[in-house]
Each structure stands twice: as C-alpha cells, then as structure tokens.
C-alpha cells in the first residue's frame, strides 16, 4: 500500500513567459503507508512546491501525482490528508476547539461528533484544558500543536507538514518532534515532512529525501534506522551516521552546479580537501548511513 506516489513529475512556473522557472523536474517518489518521510534541501530547491503538489494546492506541469491510490485532486476533495504549515494559520476568531472542528464542519459532521473528535484531538496534543481559549491567548508552540490537532481531526491517512516547527525555539521544537512521533505511531498516519534542519529530518524520519535546486530534483534518498525515537536516539551512533550521510548528500547537491569552480578555488588556495564529493549518486542510496 502506497500513501503517495509521484511519477516523472515536473513543475514549471510562469510557463511560456520570460520569467519561466522550472521548480521541479523528473521527480519520482514512492512513499509507503505508515512511513515518515522528510524532504530536505536548501532554500529554493522546491521541497515546499513538492509538498503542495502532493496536497494538490498547485497542479503539476506534467507527470502523475497519486495520493492513497487516487489522483491528487480526488484525494484532496476526499480529505485524504491533513496539512500543517510553518505559520499555525489558526482562525483567530474561533476558539481552539472550533478551530479543530473546522475541517469536520466542512465535511458535514454532526455537532456531537465534532465536539467528541475535537476533544480527542486536543487531548492527543495535550491541550484539552485550552479548548475554550482563543489562539491569540496561546504561545507559538501551543498554536502549532492546535494546528497539528486540526490537521489530524478528520483522521486522515496522510499528514503533510511544511516546516511546522520552523518558527519555534529549539526546546519547544524538540518536545514537539517527540510528540509528533508519538502521535504518528499511535494513529498510524503516513507523514511527509518538509524541513531544512538535518537533525530534525534524521530524528523524525524513516527516510530522508535530499533535494537540490535549479531545477529542483531528488539527489538522494537515505534510509534512517534508529534503534529508538527518544532522547537516547539523539546520542546514538546511527543518528550521527545518518546526519553525516544527509549532510554529505546536501553538500554534493550544493556544489554540483559549479563543481569545477569549487575545485579551481581549492587548488588556488592549495587546499587538499575538495568540497565536491565523489560519493554523489544520482539515484536513491540505500543504507547510506553505513557509508564512511
């Protein structure tokens, strides 16, 4: 069972105009059900665009995007996914509870059902006591938890997240990462998570998809196999190995467009180490965590 499948997807903005930009090209990606997959890459590599293609917020220029075995548009209309952004995007005129209820309301759920589901979701993110508050009365981290509760309210099989913890401080961020993993494990939700933090991607994911810009494409897919997903995991060798692997892939994709100049510059300085790595691989790298 696949949660998401993309085949030969490209995305071109402003097609046919002088300011035409190829945001994504040749994207092939299959995400299995129940998996936690992170998209990582430098700014402008198209990772958020890729997430929006999966969410059918923007159409693909070519190729096919399927979610839960259906075309992306059909999946969106069926609310097959929940989505959360960097901005919590809560509706300030609705109480916390009514914010979580909104997607259910639009589905035509009964009042009693909405209330019960919102209570369940708020308990899940540890905000049961704040149901009657307005968003402006909550801290940034709490708002983001409400946004996650809202994204999960319809019990979607897929959760899409666009740098949801990007605006939070490090402590809050780590706590929410652990909470998110617990929630995903409990609900069995597949997750696609966009981030530009290597440690965040490695800690959360079963699989880290590394992307490079101009045009955005997938340069490596790194499987992460941590012994556990708790604070001990942040100290484990497997964690550091995976971080090294992801970092190396990112460097590779960074240096790729101007490898030659990088080499020349290094030679001029007489530096021994060359930034461009030899281990750059165009296709998916399996078990790269063990690579030296």
């Amino acid at each position, binding site marked *: 069972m696949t949660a998401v499948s993309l085949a030969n997807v490209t995305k071109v903005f402003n097609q046919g105009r002088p300011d035409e930009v190829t945001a994504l090209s040749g994207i092939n990606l299959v995400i299995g059900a129940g998996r936690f997959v992170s998209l990582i890459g430098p700014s402008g590599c198209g990772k958020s665009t890729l997430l929006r293609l999966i969410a059918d917020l923007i159409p693909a220029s070519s190729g096919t995007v399927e979610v839960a075995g259906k075309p992306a548009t059909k999946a*969106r209309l069926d609310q097959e996914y929940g*989505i959360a952004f960097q*901005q919590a995007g809560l*509706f300030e*005129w609705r109480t916390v509870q009514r914010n979580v209820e*909104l997607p259910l309301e639009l589905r035509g759920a009964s009042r009693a059902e909405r209330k019960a589901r919102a209570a369940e979701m708020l308990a899940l993110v540890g905000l049961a006591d704040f149901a009657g508050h*307005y968003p*402006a009365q909550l801290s940034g981290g709490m708002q983001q938890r409400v946004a996650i509760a809202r994204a999960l309210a319809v019990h979607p099989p897929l959760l899409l997240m666009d740098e949801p913890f990007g605006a939070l401080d490090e402590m809050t961020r780590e706590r929410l990462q652990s909470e998110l993993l617990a929630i995903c494990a409990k609900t069995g939700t597949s997750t696609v998570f966009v981030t530009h933090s290597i440690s965040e991607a490695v800690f959360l994911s079963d699989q880290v998809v590394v992307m490079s810009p101009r045009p955005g494409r997938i340069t490596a897919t790194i499987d992460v196999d941590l012994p556990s997903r708790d604070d001990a995991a942040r100290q484990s060798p497997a964690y550091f190995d995976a971080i090294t692997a992801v970092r190396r892939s990112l460097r590779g994709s960074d240096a790729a467009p101007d490898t030659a100049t990088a080499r020349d510059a290094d030679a001029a300085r007489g530096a021994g180490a060359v930034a461009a790595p030899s281990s750059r691989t165009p296709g998916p790298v399996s078990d790269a965590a063990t690579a030296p």
Partner: protein
Amino acid sequence: MNLLRRVAPPVLLGIFALVAWELTVSLGRIAPFILPAPSAIWHELVAQRQNVWEAALASGLNALVGLAWGTVAGVLAAMAASRFRLLSEVSIPLAAVLNALPIIALAPILNNMFESTSSVPRRLVAGIIVFFPVFINTLRGLREVDPTHRELMTSYAAGGWTFTRLVRLPGALPFVFTGLRQASSLAVIAAVVAEYFGGLQDGLGSRITSAAAFTAYPRAWAFVVGACLLGLFFYLATLLLERIAMPWKTRLIS
C-alpha cells in the same frame, strides 16, 4: 486605581476648560450672542430637557437609519468589489469622487425631491456619508486574506461562499468596525446638519437654527450640547457593538 488614572486626566481637563470658559465670559463681559457662559447653557439645557430629548430622538432615528443602510450598502458593495476585480478597479476611484463631493450640499436638492414633511432626504444624506468609510475599510479587510488560510481552505476543498463566510467576512470584521467607528459620528453630524436646509422641524438641527434665528443663543447652544451627546452616544454604542461582535479581541484586553 488603573481606571481612575485613565479617566481622571481628561475629566479634570474638561472641568478646567469649563471653569476657564465661565470665567472668561463673566469677567471679560462677553455678550451672550457671541458666547454664552456654560452656566447659562446648562440652565437652558435643564429647562429645555424635554425638547432636547425629543429632538435628539428624531435626529438620532434619522442617523440610525442612515447608518444602517449605509453600512449594509457599504459591506455589500465591498463584497461585490472584492469578488470581481474589474468592479473594484472601477468602484474605488468612483467612491473617492463620491467622497470628495460635499454630500451635505445635496440636502437641499434632495429636500426638493421629497415632500417637505419627509425624513427620507436626511436619512439618504446620512447613509451616503456612512457608505464611503465602511466601503473602503471593508474592501481592504476582505482583500487581506492570510495566504495560509487560503491554502488551508483549498485543502479542505472549500471555495466560494463557504470561504467568504468562514474566512473573509470574519477576517474583515475588525476593518468593518474601523469604518463604522468613523461612520457613527459622521452619521449624526450628517443627520443634524441636513436639517439646516429646511423640511421637518423636529430634530436638533432645526431647533438650533430656529433658536439662533430668535437670538436665543444659550438655547441654541443647549441643542448643540444635545447633538454632541448624541454623537458621543453613537460612538460608544459602536464601541460596545465591536466588543460584542469580536469576543476574541476583548478577551485579550481583560
């Protein structure tokens, strides 16, 4: 304590100004037709309280009707203009031209269109004056939609009227009230001033002109005070309505 500190300075300033006014008039021997003393105005206000009250009711009703239809028309026009791009491009300069017109000057013309006993021309003038600030502010509010909200609603497959009802209208509410706060005082001014140009003799404006015509200046001033109080009442009522309509803002203050 906090309340006292906030309320005390303007109240003290007001009392000081009244005392200064009283002393200037009595010590400076200023003729009452130039400027009557506050005590004389107060005396007239007490003596005429029944008349002031009835005149304020008549003018207040005109202002209220104008405020109501002007607001409804302003909000509906803003919704239409935000919906259709062409309409907003045409309507904004048109609304600016409308606003630049001395609308009060239309009152005598409108008076001729209706019977002399009709309150309709005053209500029309008040409404037209209310329309502009409500329209402009609401339109700005409707246009400012948080991009995250837009994407969320797309992800929920909610568009058109659902989107307007759940996101754009509540989001525009603070802007509507900004317009309404300006409009509430303007509506009273328009309703009172429109009475200067004849027609029914039941409101504050016509009372002011007739008292002045009879050189009863303290009485004219007493009705001016009535008009002030009426404008203040409208403004405060709008503030109260704003608090009731947007509980998520008030909760923060308390």
